[in-house]
């Protein structure tokens, strides 16, 4: 590899996989995230990832990799690069607002405890 361990590490220490500096290899396939619906009525849940040249192959590879034991009735594949995530560095602030707003939960309302069908 062109990058030494050192540079690879200093680059990757903060950047997610998609942005990490690495030599572009024509033969390497993009990364896809796989979501599996395990039964009708349930949501698709993230199962893992895989590499595939395109969406059609990705969904086929996902079938072979993640549903060999009847784990699924439906699959989603999403290019890993298409996923937008919340800012990891702002985790405290970003998720602060709901803290202290217990009144969004039924548990908050004690006085009506014991009243039927409520």
């Amino acid at each position: 590899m062109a990058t030494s361990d050192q540079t690879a590490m200093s680059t990757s220490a903060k950047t997610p996989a998609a942005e990490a500096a690495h030599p572009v290899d024509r033969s390497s396939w993009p990364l896809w995230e796989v979501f599996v619906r395990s039964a009708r009525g349930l949501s698709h849940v993230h199962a893992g990832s895989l590499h595939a040249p395109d969406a059609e192959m990705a969904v086929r590879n996902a079938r072979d990799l993640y549903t060999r034991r009847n784990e699924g009735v439906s699959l989603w594949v999403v290019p890993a690069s298409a996923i937008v995530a919340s800012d990891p560095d702002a985790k405290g602030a970003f998720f602060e607002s709901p803290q202290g707003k217990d009144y969004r939960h039924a548990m908050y309302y004690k006085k009506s405890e014991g009243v039927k069908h409520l």
Partner: protein
Amino acid sequence: MSGESATRITPGNALRPEDIAEQVAAGTKVSEDVAEYALRLGDDALILAQRLSWWISRAPEIEEDIALGNVALDLLGHARSFLTYAGSAWGKSEDDLAYWRQESEFRSCFLVEQPNGDFGKTIARQLVFSIYQHELYSRLVDSADETLAAIAAKSLKEVDYHRDHAIQWTLRLGDGTEESHRRMQEGLNSVWPYVHELFVDDELIERLPGVAVRPSELRAPFDALLAQVLGEATLEVPDVQPAMTGNRGTRHSEHLGYLLAEMQVVAREHPGATW
């Protein structure tokens, strides 16, 4: 013909080789002709599974190790069911048939015996065989022999995926790079001499009307789909003469002997042993 226990098998349910074995143990016995026909179906699947299984740990990408492994496993499953059923004619198990027959007693076609070559040749062999097999099984589900029909119904769904896998790769190799186009076309040309054999009717087929599928019937739909796929993949239908093949008889390609030597070696070192 199949005994009454065959009716317990519901086509389309996940039919396992063990279910067939149970049915055979319960007294199902087939006629020699049906057994001979089942041998053809089983041997094709077995030999191709043996060929494909070589790829596991050698495929172009690890995702593909798994895909080819799945195809091989499916085919092995078909083989076990057909061989178990065939064996009931002679009181033999799937393993008796797989490990203790001589080369001349196998009924596989030349095509499945062909070496893997590169990935292009393997895909070419997969393409022609899975299209053929799909046409075959989609008619065998209506066979008057309920067991053959049931095995075909289970297998058809799997072959549907094999055919799709082969088509997807044919498109990518055919219309990928110059090198892949060349290799895919070469692969097709090299398996083409052995395609003709798949579609030859013979006396056995004549003796089993309503039970066996007439191979010659499959040629037109095979040609139509193949031409469509190859057209889309920017490939040519090979202009190559059919080879003189075994016509499902006792003659095989030179390759089968080596394949069987490897497949049978451990079992034959231990006659009478169970595993």
